[in-house]
């Protein structure tokens, strides 16, 4: 079988696709912009909003406490708290965000503290509101400090050692490598994105190269050339796979860039503490991309075959768009904590790659499963490619009216 014609078809489809705006957007623009915009943009905005909330003093109202002047005075002195006198409409004030929280100090509060009796304060807040959250954190800190101080004073008065306050100090130290920590946090998400993008990257070229060709009437033109239909479909398939892999590769670059950007941003915002630097080995990246390869073949062939069945671009779109969910569901299942790889799941297409990629990202290599998944994915990919080639031979599919 001469492969010269496969190469000619591939080169033509590549030239053609690189001039198609929709393919360019899905293959280059989306993967390059998606991660930076999502990650750097969102974290920048979130950082700004949180920073703003932390810089401003919180307006809080004190309800009661007339017989606890010391506590009231200390509250007024507390940093970043703007204390307002109590009013009966405090609930409305919180709901309308004129104040961020209110604290109710019961009668005899200060006296109870002095006598060593247990007492309570109640904080009213607006659940889900960031500035209200910051407000109650400040109030909680104030009362925690007051509580600790009171206990220390009582201990001192009774000449008891302070160590009794907290007889056991619990220390913890992380022994997992940064790669494992990073992989556990982001591995699932990255596998999910890589798998999803290997499909979406193939989607538009698949529609354009099969259904689009039928719609534009060029299918008859190409079928009357001497190229065999097998060579024709292989050339088209290679182009769709190129788009799929290009999308994945560009996503990987863009993802790396985004994490680097995030790291820089965290360094610049020094008050946010040390950032979690990207820790991922080249070995993990290579392993995941190798596993995604048969999946890209599978997606490219399957999408091409389905698209060929459609009469028009629009019909192909209506078949292929819902398929995104078929990919999203197993990928999301793989992301759920507790879903672990086993021999049965290793045979479920898409889900198997998602699960094993997640593990590889944490630096765990189950070679038995990796081999099983690679082999089963290759079988599925070969079957999908075989179906696509066979469909290209069928007149009722090519000339479906």
């Amino acid at each position, binding site marked *: 079988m001469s492969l*010269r*014609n496969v190469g*000619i*078809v591939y080169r*033509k489809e590549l*030239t*053609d696709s690189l*001039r*198609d705006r929709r393919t360019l957007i899905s293959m280059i623009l989306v993967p390059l912009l998606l991660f930076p915009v999502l990650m750097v943009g969102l974290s920048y905005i979130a950082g700004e909003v949180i920073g703003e909330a932390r810089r401003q003093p919180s307006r809080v109202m004190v309800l009661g406490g007339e017989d606890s002047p010391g506590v009231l005075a200390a509250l007024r002195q507390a940093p970043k708290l703007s204390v307002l006198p109590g009013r009966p409409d405090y609930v409305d004030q919180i709901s309308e965000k004129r104040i961020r929280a209110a604290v109710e100090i019961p009668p005899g509060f200060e006296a109870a503290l002095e006598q060593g009796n247990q007492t309570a304060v109640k904080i009213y807040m607006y659940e889900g509101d960031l500035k209200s959250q910051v407000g109650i954190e400040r109030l909680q800190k104030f009362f925690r400090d007051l509580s600790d101080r009171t206990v220390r004073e009582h201990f001192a008065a009774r000449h008891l050692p302070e160590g009794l306050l907290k007889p056991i100090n619990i220390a913890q130290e992380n022994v997992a490598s940064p790669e494992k920590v990073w992989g556990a946090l982001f591995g699932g998400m990255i596998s999910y994105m890589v798998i999803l993008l290997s499909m979406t990257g193939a989607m538009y070229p698949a529609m354009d190269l099969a259904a689009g060709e039928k719609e*534009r*009437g*060029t299918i*008859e*033109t190409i*079928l*009357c*050339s*001497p*190229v*065999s239909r097998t060579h024709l479909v292989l050339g088209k398939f290679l182009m769709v796979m190129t788009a799929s892999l290009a999308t994945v590769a560009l996503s990987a670059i863009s993802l790396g860039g985004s994490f680097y950007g995030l790291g820089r941003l965290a360094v610049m915002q020094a008050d946010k503490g040390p950032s979690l630097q990207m820790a991922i080995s080249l070995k993990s990246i290579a392993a995941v991309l190798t596993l995604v390869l048969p999946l890209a073949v599978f997606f490219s062939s399957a999408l091409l075959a389905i698209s060929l069945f459609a009469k028009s671009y629009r019909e192909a779109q209506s078949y292929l768009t819902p398929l995104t969910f078929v990919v999203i569901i197993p990928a999301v299942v793989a992301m759920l904590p507790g879903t672990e790889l086993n021999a049965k799941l290793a045979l479920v297409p898409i889900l198997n790659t998602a699960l094993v990629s997640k593990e590889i990202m944490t630096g765990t290599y189950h070679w038995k499963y990796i081999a099983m998944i690679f082999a089963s994915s290759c079988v599925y990919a070969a079957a999908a490619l075989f179906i696509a080639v066979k469909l290209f031979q069928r*007149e009722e599919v090519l*000339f479906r009216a």
Partner: protein
Amino acid sequence: MIEAQSLTKVFQDKKRGEIRAVDGVSFRCQPGQIYGLLGANGAGKTTALRILATILEPTNGTAKVAGYDIVTEPEKVRANVGFLSTATALYGRLSAQEFVEYFGRLHGLEEAELHRRIDQIFERLDMNEFRDRRCDKLSTGMKQKVSIARTLVHDPQVMIFDEPTVGLDVMTARTIVQFIRECREHGKTVIFSTHVMSEAEKLCDTIGIIHGGRILAEGTLAELRQRYRQEDLEEIFVHVVGDAQ
């Protein structure tokens, strides 16, 4: 040379059941001659020509085109055939030259030979002005020229035209008609389908009247006139088809 022997094509339709689009069609077309398939819409012209161009496979029967069997050697048939119809569209995102080059390469032409052929054809069809323009930016007439260049790039022995002038303006249609004549003058075997009587009268050496997938009458224009005692081809056509119905 084209020799069709009992070509039959049956389609299965969910609603209408079995459809015999082409039913036992046999004819012969010699080099340097134009064979015209004259028939109304749905008569089976397009299916018959698609079978000859090996785009469709016959259910029964076969044909030899340029000495090759359409069933057993379809790729060799296509290598020796130029197929043109109004349904054979262009790749809009390729330039006129890229489009013709693509087909030339698929026909196995070497680069030097390919460019020599393209220069020659573009010169002859007066296409140099728009050779680098994208096909979707071309006028209908220009597009037809690009299609003609595609059919000629591999210098085929046999030309198949399926209603090549449908929907074209007078000037573009004349270009096509002139091109078909030139093919005959260059000794090519030409078959073309039409439902336009005047085109058949002007061009064809032999006319086959096709209806319901069968060739009901065949002969030169003079033979048909003599057989049906009518001068006007339209009258002959109505007579033949009317008898069949």
